[in-house]
């Protein structure tokens, strides 16, 4: 045997021994906290904060993320201490980013997340459980997934019901129409749950107003330009029969207003949904009859606050009732009478929320049909 080969084998043997020793040391070290501090994972100190969402390209998501930042600042940190995990509409990226964030902080995390699509909520929750992090989800989650089935690490799920507030807005509309006439609905993307719920709300209200006819329902894809064109076509088809318009969101209502403007038609009442600042101004000016505000800023802050307080041990999620772990956020119908007060309270100044009052604005537990 040449010395070269002999040296090589000797070296490899030593290396293997070193490797085994190192492994044993590493495992021992990893087990240490388990031996000496069994409860460490339950009450983490100073967990890393993150919000996982699509992007900031709309007023709505801007408000959600700003709420998360408000909460972070309330802890005496800076807004930059909240990490933005931007998924760009990809569920895979959403999950990968959250896993990377958990790994980077050894699971000592409080995360708020919109999982991008419903099926993705489960792997996100399970990844957090495995790593020992705490997560609150909003909007997207399958009906069969519940925080209490996963455990304390899946703190809560927050959503907004479109049906009830949309029904309330429809009632305001029908009263303005004098209880009779024809209404058209311009909807969101047909398969979106909020679009379905908001249309259902309109239908619920119609039951109590037999003299109001639902002339047509078509999709405007949440889009202002498409809404303008759709409304113009509705005017050709129904003309004066349209005496009220029910829109699935504010952006659609902006398009409807412009379509009427082009025709020189005034005085047809329009209701919308979302409560964006522009829409609230239109309610004050009288261009819009009503819109529904869902307080995304509070939602964005409280989702992160829930995860944070569960992580530091302020409350133990499994000891909370189910309606504290799956609940609806608030919805306020803004009409001309209260629009000025509303604007002063929510738009002109940023309200200061008590982020420790975790369920103060809850509109009740989530109901499945």
């Amino acid at each position, binding site marked *: 045997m040449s010395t070269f080969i002999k040296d090589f084998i000797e070296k490899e043997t030593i290396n293997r021994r070193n490797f085994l020793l190192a492994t044993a040391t590493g495992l021992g070290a990893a087990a240490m906290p388990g031996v000496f501090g069994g409860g460490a994972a339950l009450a983490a100190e100073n967990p890393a904060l993150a919000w996982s969402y699509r992007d*900031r390209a709309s007023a709505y998501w*801007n408000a959600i993320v700003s709420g998360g930042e408000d909460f972070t600042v309330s802890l005496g940190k800076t807004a930059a201490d909240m990490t933005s995990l931007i998924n760009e509409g990809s569920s895979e990226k959403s999950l990968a980013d959250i896993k990377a964030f958990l790994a980077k902080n050894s699971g000592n995390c409080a995360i708020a997340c919109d999982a991008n699509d419903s099926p993705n909520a489960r792997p996100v929750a399970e990844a957090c459980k495995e790593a020992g992090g705490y997560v609150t989800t909003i909007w997207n989650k399958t009906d069969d997934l519940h925080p209490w089935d996963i455990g304390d690490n899946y703190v809560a799920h927050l959503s907004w019901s479109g049906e009830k507030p949309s029904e309330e807005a429809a009632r305001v509309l029908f009263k303005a129409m004098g209880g009779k006439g024809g209404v058209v609905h311009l909807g969101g993307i047909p398969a979106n749950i909020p679009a379905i719920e908001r249309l259902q709300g309109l239908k619920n209200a119609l039951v109590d107003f037999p003299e109001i006819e639902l002339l047509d329902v*078509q999709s405007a894809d949440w889009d202002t*330009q498409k809404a303008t*064109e759709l409304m*113009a076509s509705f005017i*050709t*088809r129904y003309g004066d029969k349209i005496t009220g318009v029910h829109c699935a969101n504010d952006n659609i209502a902006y398009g409807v207003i*412009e379509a009427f403007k*082009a025709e020189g038609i005034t005085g047809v009442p329009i209701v919308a949904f979302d409560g964006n600042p522009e829409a609230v101004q239109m309610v004050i000016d009288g261009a819009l009859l009503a819109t529904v505000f869902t307080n995304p800023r509070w939602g964005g802050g409280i989702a992160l606050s829930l995860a944070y307080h569960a992580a530091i041990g302020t409350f133990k999620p499994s000891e909370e009732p189910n309606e504290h772990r799956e609940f609806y956020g608030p919805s306020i119908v803004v009409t001309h009478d209260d629009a000025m007060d509303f604007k002063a309270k929510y738009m002109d100044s940023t309200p200061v929320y008590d982020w420790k009052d975790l369920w103060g604005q809850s509109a009740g537990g989530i109901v499945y049909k």
Partner: protein
Amino acid sequence: MTRHFSRKTLLKWAPLLVLLVLVVFFTAINPAFFSLRNFARIAITSSPALMVAIGVTFIIIMGSIDLSMEGAISFSAVVFAFMFKFLGGTLDSWGWLALPLIVLCGAVFGWVNGMIHVRLRIPSFMASLAMGFVGTGAAILLTGGNIVKVDDELFRGLLTVRYFGFPIMVYVAVFFLLVGAFVQSYTPLGRNFYAVGGGEDLAHASGVKVRRVRVMGFAIAGAYYAIAAILAVGKIGQAESVSGANFMFISITSVVVGGVALWGGTGGVWNALVGVLIVSVINNGMVVIGLPDFIQDGMLGLLVIIAVVLSTDRRSIQVVK
């Protein structure tokens, strides 16, 4: 010979025939379709789309493709809105200056697009798509996701002031259609577009500066996208990072339906006009006759295929890619 001649003539006029058949069809089902008010509505919808379609027609004649329109329009719309507000917020003041400036800005955007395509030798498909994303990204960055309102009554006159039943924006679109037709037929640049699209090697051998023609084509397209952005803002009174959404589909579909061949060298701005009208008439007509919306997308696709089959001459080409 006579037969050949008649077939050629038929093909030339086929898109217009398709348009007429559609108008008759929708009128037969709902006579309300055939009214001046409804034609004005279709014209309003078509105006911004026509500007985009004319811009991309020049590129398609050259045998290239431009997919930057959505980003270019969003970017132009947002920059226009900010510039307009900065310069006084009304056409009465220096605000009018924003109009020519934004068309120039659009041309520069298109020029950069063309330079990336020609100088870096990136296929126009990829270069323009990437520039489109840059435009959308810049628009999001500038607005932070918010809406920029443009509510100057004078500027909104584009939509609200009417002559002979049609709002001013329709006349603006017709004016730039004529400008496009002039560039196409009466300038060396316009003829060079056809030369490049018909056979780039031949054009090069005949002394056409192909690279320069290409870059100029993209710059003109960019200017037209900016005009489209102004009309789009005039139409809904607001600019945002999604102002350009949906324009890619409607413009390219329109151009092809109107009879401009994607392989270059044939068609022109008049085809683009007829194409845009066909797509707008279909979209308007389907709602007017009361088609449920879940059928509309499928029906639009079907009608587009039929229109392409009828209006393009596919006999002369051997390979369809």
